[in-house]
């Protein structure tokens, strides 16, 4: 650019605002967290008068034998078990849907997707109704068929139960990434192996798997990271089973059974896990780069040849059937039944006693309507902030030559690696220290949850890459200022991409449980937290009624997701 030319203020200022907001959403809370880890005494906020520099938090946390005897082993078993089972289910389903001649693949696709849209507490409560040792439907069924005496034989409140439930919940996300991987493989790679004289099995072993490996590894690393930060199921299912994973431990430091919250201790225990998360992200990045290099024609989706399953189709339908029953159909049924009949056993005779009392109960309460309002407002503004910031960061990364763009790219990407419980903790410490009345309102939830900008940045950047920069230059050559070029040319062209990012974050926002629970107050309650409170208070019918309501509320999102998010995600 000619140095004498008048600098276009908009071009300088607007993206910079995006970068600043991103720093504010991510770097400030995380910085605060690090700072807090070295401030004491334990129940003091870092800037509180009387707080001082100390190593006590770290020493206390890492000297605690519970860390080594309980938290680390439990976390390790939970993560390994979940990752193994999730990977198996997700890859098998992706392969069946993408590469086999399975019938009704569209229906299976929607069924597999379902747990991705429902808040996890809804599923957790349904699984307790199904697999609880005393009155769980599946246990009752087994007892009556085989003549067992209760309780059992299955118990959801166990490490196995936790791993199975977490895997059912995590499968859809990994499944989506794996279908994209499978679709990106050039079928001629396999055909060339056949034409070289290799049998189909040898081709699968020597060509298909090695070529797909980086593309499979990336989602596996990602799900490891996600499992590591899981909080919902470890709280709802793991806690009664006395399973103690790290995310719950942080929550426990803030909400101890007795005594004051230990901010410094919570921050101290967060740090090693934050580093673990970053390590996973680095590995993920390496796998993705290799996968990109392996995609000989980048970003292209191929029409895959469908392989006949033959007799294996029965096993395939059985696996898909069991998954759909456990993850979708039975949870929906048990919630609807319990909402109408409480703990009454599922028999036709009992059906006569069905009553809508629980719904009247729940909906007659003003808290319910406040929670509905809060959930939608939080999801909407979170999506709006995340999409806007993501678009600006995407622009900086794809279009500008600003020296800081690598750092912005890293910052946005890093947000994936920060567990939501740690974000909640950081934001809590920050806004308790900066008392401007945000704490306890829905705005703190929005500020906390808006840190998820990795996906929106990626989507915006990919969208911008497809908009030829000559389109922008043509606008400039027609006399358009930078800002009007963006608003008149780029934003309209980018809109489908922005829309898909918005919907994605909106769906994640409606499911959000961890952040609102850690930061909750009577004023900022959201539906999943209300559900958890009802359930904890021992109200099966009202909690089932609320869970059913949530389920029907998110149901239309399956169509939104299939229409707007998945085609884009697989095109990337």
């Amino acid at each position: 650019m000619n140095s004498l030319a008048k600098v276009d203020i908009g071009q300088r200022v607007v993206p910079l605002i995006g970068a600043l907001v991103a720093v504010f959403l991510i770097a400030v809370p995380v910085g605060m967290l690090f700072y807090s880890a070295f401030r004491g005494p334990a129940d003091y906020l870092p800037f509180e008068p009387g707080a001082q520099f100390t190593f006590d938090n770290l020493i206390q946390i890492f000297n605690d034998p519970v860390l080594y005897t309980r938290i680390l082993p439990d976390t390790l078993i939970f993560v390994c078990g979940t990752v193994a089972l999730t990977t198996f289910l997700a890859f098998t389903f992706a392969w069946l849907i993408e590469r086999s001649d399975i019938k009704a693949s569209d229906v299976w696709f929607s069924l597999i997707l379902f747990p991705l849209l429902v808040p996890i507490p809804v599923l957790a409560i349904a699984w307790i109704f199904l697999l609880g040792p005393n009155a769980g439907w599946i246990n009752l069924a087994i007892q009556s068929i085989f003549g067992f005496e209760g309780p059992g034989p299955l118990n959801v409140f166990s490490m196995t139960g936790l791993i199975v439930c977490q895997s059912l919940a995590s499968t859809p996300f990994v499944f989506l990434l794996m279908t994209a991987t499978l679709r990106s493989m050039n079928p001629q790679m396999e055909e060339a192996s056949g034409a070289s004289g290799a049998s189909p099995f040898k081709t699968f072993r020597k060509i298909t798997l090695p070529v797909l490996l980086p593309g499979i590894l990336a989602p596996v690393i990602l799900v490891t990271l996600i499992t590591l930060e899981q909080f919902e199921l470890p709280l709802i299912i793991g806690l009664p089973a006395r399973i103690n994973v790290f995310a719950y431990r942080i929550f426990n430091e803030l909400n101890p059974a007795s005594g004051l919250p230990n901010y410094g201790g919570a921050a101290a225990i967060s740090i090693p896990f934050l580093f673990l998360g970053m390590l996973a992200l680095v590995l993920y990045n390496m796998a993705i780069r290799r996968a990109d290099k392996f995609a000989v024609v980048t970003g292209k989706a191929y029409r895959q040849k469908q392989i006949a399953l033959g007799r294996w189709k029965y096993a395939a339908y059985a696996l898909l059937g069991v998954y759909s029953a456990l993850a979708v159909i039975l949870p929906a049924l048990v919630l609807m039944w319990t909402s109408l009949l409480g703990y009454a056993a599922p028999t036709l005779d009992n059906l006569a006693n069905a009553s809508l009392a629980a719904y009247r109960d729940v909906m007659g309460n003003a808290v319910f309507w406040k929670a509905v309002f809060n959930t939608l407002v939080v999801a909407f503004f979170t999506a709006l902030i995340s999409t806007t910031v993501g678009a600006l960061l995407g622009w900086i990364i794809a279009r500008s030559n600003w020296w800081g763009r690598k750092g912005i790219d890293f910052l946005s990407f890093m947000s994936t690696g920060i567990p939501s419980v740690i974000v909640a903790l950081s934001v809590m410490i920050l806004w308790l220290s900066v008392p401007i009345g945000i704490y306890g309102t829905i705005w703190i939830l929005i500020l906390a949850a808006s840190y998820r900008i990795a996906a929106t940045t990626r989507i915006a950047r990919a969208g911008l890459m497809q908009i030829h920069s000559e389109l922008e230059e043509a606008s400039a050559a027609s006399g358009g200022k930078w800002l009007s070029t963006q608003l008149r040319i780029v934003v309209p062209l980018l809109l489908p991409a922005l829309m898909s990012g918005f919907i994605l974050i909106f769906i994640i926002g409606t499911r959000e449980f961890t952040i609102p629970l850690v930061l909750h107050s009577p004023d900022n309650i959201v539906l999943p937290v209300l559900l958890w409170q009802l359930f904890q208070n021992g109200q099966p019918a009202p909690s089932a009624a609320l869970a059913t309501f949530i389920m029907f509320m998110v149901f239309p999102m399956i169509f939104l997701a299939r229409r707007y998010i998945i085609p884009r995600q697989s095109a990337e």
Partner: protein
Amino acid sequence: MLVVSGLTKTFNSPEGRNTVIKGIDFEVKEGDCYALLGPSGCGKTTTLRCVAGLEHADSGVIRIGDQVVSDPASGIFVPVHQRPIGMVFQSYAIWPHLDVFENIAYPLRVQRPRVAKAEIEERVMAALRLVNMQDYVRRASTRLSGGQQQRVALARAIVRNPTLLLLDEPLSNLDARLRDTMRKELGDLIARIGITALFVTHDQAEAFSLAHRIAVMNQGVIVQEGTPREIYRTPTDPFVAFFMGSANVMSGQAAPAGAGQITLTGTDHYLHADIALEPGESVSIVLRPEQLTLSRDAAPAARNVLEGHIARLTYQGGSMECDVHLGGDVNLRVPIPGDLDFEKGMPVWVSIQSLEGSVFRGKASPAT
């Protein structure tokens, strides 16, 4: 060597049934290079894939050497990995996790009984030398250019000495300049190793320069089969004639008097052809550039000279394309040397050397 007879193939998709091969027969002699030529969607690639065993034909027999590899009527289908073939794919399909050497060694490594290590080394190096890639033995395959990938794909296809080499649009992914070089090299290589080859292309220049025989395909059938010269000189179908070059296609009508007189539709010109036509019958006339000469002087006595004027001149360096307006909306494109001082609007006479093989009964179809 390769015999294909009565081959048919229908694809069932959600959009409906689509018959892409409607019964085709051809034979490739030992050591010949045979081209399936046609526009996209004509069924040529599917035919090749049936020969390879990558698609199941619905009916018909495919024989490679003495072995019937596909005959649905008798339930015979030899899977792709058991057929004695080597294949070059359109995308080259170089495996990204293997380097150049391992890509080429792969067909030998999966062979049973096992090939000795030293022999693999020797044969891979020989194949690499054939394609001039001996300096790239341990190059990562993700770091190859398009032309290099093409060479590796070719080496991989010939390394196990297949009976039949199959090539699917082998040059279409290369840019124009490289395509010319690779076309010559490919021709030399096939001739040198004397392998029987079947290849698919939509580019007539490629088919002419590489193939001993060509089958021109359109809409699932072979419309003409023969040597390049036969196909160019004596096309049996206006589609073939049109597809072979930048020909002019016009429609005409046999004059009531018969005797080979044809009126050019849209003009008051007529032509004489030595062909028996019903009076009033519709015909299509295909005129290739080299049949036409342009002159500024009238030659009233000569047969098949059409008068018109120059509607447009397109200068192309060594030559010019001259559009001669004959009346109505009928123009004839004639190439002329670039140094002639013709001008737009000038009256000219086009003389047609011979109409042999240029007049076809029936209307010129919109497909041409």
